[in-house]
């Protein structure tokens, strides 16, 4: 393993669905000689692309898990994380971005900046990941890299700077003009592996000169040396330009743009050159951890191999040799035989086998120094756990994990399936923090919950394929919530004095809506009306009431409880009695506080040919959607709407049939909003029917 940190690149490849990320990664592995044959994503040859290691991914032509892999280019070691493109799996994307130093944003030269690219870009911004853009599919009909660069500027606000220009487009796409070296580059040989350099075609030289000047002008903002060279009319060397471009890129002030067609084996090597020369090495990036001893004060980590270890487990995978934990080491060195501590559980672990991954193949290694990505074997942990040297108490920044918005009941077909299902669920919940599961106490059903229909579907499918667990699924259920809309007072006496020890407690006060949190409890009792030792019992009683609302049995949020009076009995009062009194008081006041049901609202973005704009808006409108706006993009239009999740089931089928399959959509959770009265009634009826059925 190489130890020169300046020659390490940890990069991610992120983009919209079908922009060709997996194909691009496949080509990168081929040119860096990690693989010796090229396979297509859709698996026409029955092998499938190397990065899509899960069977299911091969079948559907999508990437689900971000397989980590590494390769070498020009003496640099490049670790690549292939990230999923569908919004349902954004936790994977976010996790990858957390451990990466730089990213390649793949854009389709026809589709341009699409909705998912916007989401991914926002995530990159959140984690300050510098990126370069690769405009793919320049061979497709309708390819227009200039328009994509313009969209990078207008839609994403990037200061996009073209480092290349295409030679021919669509079926005539031959190669690119390298604006730094000012020469034409052609990709020849059976798989484009031979680079031939030539003169810039005369017809393009004027435009190339103009674009080069534009590029140098932008780059000079980040280099005094370059500015001086321009002013003094000295020779502008490629090294000078690259250094300036790199500086701008690292600050996220500039996004270099390269282009090509991965499928047609064009432009990939130049992209690799750009990755190694423009994206940051681990030492260029400042990483911080939280010091748990000092109230989570941020600590800057030193990217040095001889410091104490700080590492993050960012992905778990269940392989034939047990649990495989992908880690990124931020500080120190993890070597075989050293002892590290899992900060969350406090457990000490002796490091056994270490490996670095190449999709589903691996290579054993001795050490993982700071800045590197590798994998541990047989370590019990959850993804997102931090590992440190004994004595340290640092945690890597906790990642934002959204709460699930949809759930599904699953029933195993037989006993064997039951056992396998449990194994699968325990693995999936560890791998993916947005995937939750629990057993419904009333119906005894196993409920899985996640971020969208497809998210859950894929897990059910994986249970079947990887674990042989045949399960049948119920209808998806939306995660509704209850809240109140006005203040209501309560004054409740809980009294039970018939036989045995008595129970007595009186609680008075009020409940009111609050936007400051899910639950706020305030004790305003004076004069010992309720003795202090019973106050926690009161709070506990109210808290218990929140789990299931008296109205429709959904969890209650956004409520403030204030108690200001009460009474106790010297003998009969107890914790139990006050808990019961609190529950009674809550039930009593809740229905008078005008309870309402809230439902998850999704941000839905539909991209369709302009002629289908009317029907698409109609479809969204029928689904209680509120259309935020419609963007006319020439041949295509983008309709953005807020639609209740409950109305989105089966939307993809309806959308396909209404638009001859020409539209696509993405959906992500946006906010919770009150359910209209008529719908609330319907929900109540459904719940009553379900209860009756369960009984």
């Amino acid at each position, binding site marked *: 393993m190489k130890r020169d940190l300046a020659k390490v690149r940890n990069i991610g490849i992120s983009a919209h669905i079908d922009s060709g990320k997996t194909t691009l990664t496949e080509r990168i592995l081929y040119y860096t000689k990690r693989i010796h044959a090229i396979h297509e994503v859709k698996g026409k040859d029955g092998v499938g692309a190397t990065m899509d290691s899960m069977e299911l991914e091969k079948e559907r032509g999508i990437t689900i898990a971000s397989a980590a892999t590494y390769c070498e280019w020009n003496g640099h070691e490049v670790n690549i994380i292939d990230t999923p493109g569908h919004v349902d799996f954004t936790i994977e994307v976010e996790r990858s971005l957390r451990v990466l130093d730089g990213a390649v944003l793949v854009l389709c030269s026809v589709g341009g900046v699409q909705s998912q690219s*916007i989401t991914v870009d926002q995530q990159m911004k959140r984690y300050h990941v510098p990126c370069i853009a690769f405009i793919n599919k320049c061979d497709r009909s309708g390819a227009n890299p200039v328009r994509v660069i313009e969209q990078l500027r*207008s*839609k994403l606000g990037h200061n996009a700077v073209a480092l290349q220009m295409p030679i021919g487009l669509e079926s005539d796409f031959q190669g690119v003009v390298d604006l730094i070296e000012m020469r034409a580059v052609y990709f020849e040989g059976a798989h484009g592996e031979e680079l031939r350099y030539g003169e810039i075609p005369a017809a393009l030289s004027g435009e190339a000169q103009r674009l080069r000047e534009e590029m140098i002008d932008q780059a000079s903002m980040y280099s005094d040396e370059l500015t001086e060279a321009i002013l003094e009319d000295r020779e502008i060397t490629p090294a000078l330009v690259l250094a300036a471009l790199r500086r701008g890129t690292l600050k996220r002030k500039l996004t270099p743009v390269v282009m090509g067609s991965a499928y047609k084996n064009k432009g990939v090597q130049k992209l690799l050159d750009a990755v190694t020369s423009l994206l940051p090495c681990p030492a260029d990036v400042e990483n911080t951890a939280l010091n748990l001893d000092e109230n989570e004060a941020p600590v800057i980590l030193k990217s040095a191999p001889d410091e104490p270890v700080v590492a993050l487990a960012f992905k778990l995978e269940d392989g034939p040799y047990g649990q495989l934990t992908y880690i990124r080491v931020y500080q120190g060195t993890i070597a075989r035989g050293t002892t590290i501590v899992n900060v969350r559980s406090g457990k000490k672990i002796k490091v056994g086998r270490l490996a670095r991954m190449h999709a589903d193949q691996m290579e054993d290694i001795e050490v993982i120094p700071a800045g590197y990505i590798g994998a541990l074997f047989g370590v019990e942990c959850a993804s997102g756990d931090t590992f440190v040297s004994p004595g340290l108490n640092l945690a890597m920044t906790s990642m934002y994990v959204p709460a699930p918005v949809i759930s599904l009941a699953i029933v195993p077909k037989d006993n064997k399936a039951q056992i396998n299902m449990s194994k699968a669920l325990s693995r999936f919940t560890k791998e993916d923090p947005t995937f939750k599961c629990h057993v419904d106490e009333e119906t005894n059903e196993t409920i899985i919950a996640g971020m969208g229909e497809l998210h859950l579907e894929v897990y059910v499918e994986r249970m079947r394929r990887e674990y042989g667990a045949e399960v049948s699924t119920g209808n998806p259920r939306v995660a509704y919530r209850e809240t109140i809309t006005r203040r209501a007072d309560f004054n409740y006496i809980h009294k039970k004095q018939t036989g045995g020890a008595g129970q007595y407690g009186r609680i008075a006060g009020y409940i009111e809506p609050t*936007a400051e949190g899910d639950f706020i409890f305030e004790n305003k009792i004076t004069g010992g009306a309720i003795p202090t030792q019973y106050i926690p019992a009161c709070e506990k009683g109210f808290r218990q009431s929140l789990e299931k609302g008296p109205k429709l049995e959904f969890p209650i949020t956004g409520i403030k409880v204030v108690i200001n009076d009460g009474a106790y009995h010297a003998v009969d009062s107890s914790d139990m009695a006050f808990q019961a009194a609190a529950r009674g008081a809550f039930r009593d006041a809740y229905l008078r506080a005008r309870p309402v049901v809230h439902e998850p609202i999704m941000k839905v973005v539909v991209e369709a040919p302009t002629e289908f*704009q*009317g029907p698409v*808006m*109609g479809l969204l*409108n029928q689904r209680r959607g*509120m*259309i*935020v*706006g*419609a*963007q*006319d*993009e*020439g041949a295509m239009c*983008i309709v*953005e709407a807020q639609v209740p999740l409950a109305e989105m089931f089966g939307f993809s089928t309806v959308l396909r049939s209404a638009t001859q399959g020409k539209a696509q959509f993405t959906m992500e959770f946006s906010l919770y*909003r009150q359910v209209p009265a008529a719908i609330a009634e319907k929900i109540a009826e459904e719940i009553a029917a379900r209860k009756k059925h369960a009984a």
Partner: protein
Amino acid sequence: MLKKDLISRSPLRQMGYEHDDIIPEGGFGAVLARAGVGKTALLVQFALNTMLRGKRVLHVSLQDPVQKVDVWYRELFHHLAVQYQVGQIRTLWEEILPLRFIMTFKVEGFSVPRLRERLNDLTEQGIFRPEAIIMDGLICDDGAEPVLREMKAMVEELGLRAWFTVHVHRQVKADEDGVPKPLLPADELFDVALLLVTEGNEMHIRDLKSSQIPSPRPVLILDPATMLIKESAAVAS
């Protein structure tokens, strides 16, 4: 402070107009300024006020994507609500949000028949029927007259009130009366024209046309930080 108080703080009322609808049905209003002075911000304030009064606004932008326009509305509404200490900001926002529809076009792809077609998509399906229209980014140069006349016909037919942003290319003196040149080709179509000018660190709003405001006309100042009209308006002679 309640919603009705927020309505009474309407930018137009602060400018001395008695009513919020200073342009008649089928009428045109224009906000003129150089680039970056705050045309969009002022029109979004007009739109928010219209929405607060329960009327539907169609915002047509030829320069920004939907998300960016949405951010304008969110930010300005938030600033307004904070400035006038309105409670229950979120509820109020949720209440007025369905009264807005954003449509964006590329400058080269925009035409009135196309807008009309899109509008029909909305009205025929009962999705949205606007009462006011904000046109942001339409180039009002010498060649714009046919487009403006087509717009006028549409706006009159549908009984809308339309506001336009007009980019002024040259420095227009603050005290110069009359409509700046770029608007001239279809000057008679406009009922109201407001000019935004920078004077030192302040932005002033001048009414160029209307006779509704008694003289001396108030000079309103836009706060450059929030793009809201400042409460204390100086009075010019």
